[in-house]
């Protein structure tokens, strides 16, 4: 079997000839290391997400270009009509568009998971003796970094356009923190859909159907006071409204305990309900 390598000139010198000895050295069984902790396994999967960003930096497009376009578009589209000037509108609008952009980006968690499953690499992860949710938690850890990046990009654009948060650095950090907590929790909705839907396209389709009403029928763009009563009822219970209210308050230097509490309750609910559903599907697929 190895003869062809020597008779053919001009072939790459690296024709692989399996050698029983070389293979023997790597097959010699050493002691099995202890199983990694849940945290260590999750962080290792998070490291995988980092490596993927390093190798496929194009995937950062949706967390950089998309948010910039969103901020510019809506600031100048609505700014003059809804407030005295785009700059005035921005003081109200920036926390909202930050929430909208980041919440919309959460859907890529589902798309990414679906692609992983399609490619088969999840089969290997699922046969590893590690803490079961680690692969998904690690994936979301990677996504959280993308959310932070998107939030920072939007903040940068906002500051350049004249956004002046009353809460200062601490207020802004608190606002981004709340947003990241919610987005982490909300990502579990998409891991579930990523597992049950058959293709990347259907995951996209479902997420759009959920995300558009959720982000637009809220207090992001305008004060809900002008909306008809039935719509106000929806806007009021919409978790995005609660999130925007608490982020807005934090960035302006005050606080909105009731909205913050509701938003944290929603987050806990998403993790409990969709985290459980996700793991159920993940184990049974």
């Amino acid at each position, binding site marked *: *079997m190895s003869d*062809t390598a020597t008779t053919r000139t001009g072939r790459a010198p*690296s*024709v*692989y*000839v*399996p*050698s*029983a000895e*070389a*293979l*023997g*050295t*790597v*097959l*010699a*069984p*050493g002691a*099995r*290391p*202890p*199983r*990694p902790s849940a945290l*260590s*396994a999750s962080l*290792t*999967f998070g*490291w*995988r997400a980092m*490596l*993927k960003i390093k*190798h*496929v930096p194009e995937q950062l497009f949706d967390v950089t270009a998309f948010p910039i376009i969103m901020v510019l578009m809506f600031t100048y589209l609505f700014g003059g009509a809804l407030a005295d000037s785009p700059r005035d509108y921005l003081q109200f609008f920036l926390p909202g568009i930050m929430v909208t952009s980041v919440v919309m980006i959460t859907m890529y968690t589902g798309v990414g998971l679906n692609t992983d499953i399609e*490619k*088969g*690499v999840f*089969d*290997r*992860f*699922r*046969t*590893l*003796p*590690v803490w079961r949710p*680690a692969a998904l938690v690690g994936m979301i850890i990677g996504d959280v970094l993308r959310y932070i990046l998107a939030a920072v990009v939007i903040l940068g654009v906002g500051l350049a356009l004249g956004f002046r948060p009353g809460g200062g650095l601490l207020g802004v950090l608190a606002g981004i923190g709340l947003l990241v907590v919610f987005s982490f929790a909300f990502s579990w909705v998409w891991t579930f859909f990523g597992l049950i839907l058959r293709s990347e396209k259907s995951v996209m389709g479902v997420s759009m159907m959920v995300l558009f009403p959720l982000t637009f029928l809220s207090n992001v763009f305008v004060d809900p006071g002008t909306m008809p009563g039935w719509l106000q009822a929806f806007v009021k219970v919409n978790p995005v409204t609660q999130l925007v209210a608490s982020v807005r308050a934090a960035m302006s230097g005050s606080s909105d305990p009731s909205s913050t509490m509701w938003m944290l309750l929603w987050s806990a609910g998403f993790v409990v309900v969709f985290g459980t559903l996700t793991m159920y599907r993940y184990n*049974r*697929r």
Partner: protein
Amino acid sequence: MSRRTTGLAIEADAITRSFGETRALNGIDLQVPAGTVYGLLGPNGAGKTTAVRVLATLLRPDGGRARVFGHDVVSEADAVRARVSLTGQYASVDEDLTGTENLVLLGRLLGLKKPAARQRAEALLAAFGLTEAGDRQVKKYSGGMRRRIDIAASILNTPDLLFLDEPTTGLDPRSRNQVWEIIRAVVAHGTTVLLTTQYLDEADQLAGRIAVVDHGRVIAEGTPGELKSSVGSGTVHLRLRDPGQRPEAEKVLQAALGVPVQLEADPVALTARVGGDGTDLDASKQAARALGDLASAGIVVDDFSVGQPSLDEVFLALTDHPAVTADERDDQLEAAR
């Protein structure tokens, strides 16, 4: 937990599994002795992959019981996972990552510290001839290299049982031989290998025992020799110059061999099984006699060969239906996944 395990590596008892309307596993039984290569042979859609997925804890069976080294694959899945490894039909490494990164990632997940994981990755890459490719993304690997990194990833922890799902499908002959050598080395070090394949000669080359799978059940089981002799040790293929002579050739062959002769779709081709009692010399003698008889009957033969029965022929003999019809089933299964 000793590495050289004796007894049975796998015991599967009447496993069933359906995907919607399609019954992928229809009560499959398996007994795989530890320390051997065991072949699951069957066409696409026979249920081989589903069986592997159930045994590797990726899929729950609808009914039946399966144990791997005595651990139930459903209720003791974690104990099973600690001892098995899987190289799937599709890439089971991350194509966006480099070879080294993939191995380090898996090493870390199996509990190695970073320096140890890195060392292990380097050793594996060297043993699999991938040192130079270590820093390249796996999606840039050739088919053979990809298979090798897949298998390297599977033996990171030197498993007690390795599942190889059609490891050579789509590979060129040289890469296929490399994979065969690797499998031989793996089993020589005490790891049990469950190999699925569509090729009889692959199972023949590697496996100590083979189970032929069709429509989700085992239809025959034994050593390669036993299986082949149950089908006839060889097959005579011949092609005539003149299609008009085929009916006559059929008669002559039938008389000479004493077995039914099959007319192929090709109007000049005929096939017959010979050597029913399993001795190869017998097959050659019968074939020689048949060729002589054809010549004396004035039939011009363009091409004449005696070969091992193909999977198709084994199938035909065991099931009375050709293996290829299973393709549609496969499509259905794909869709149901």
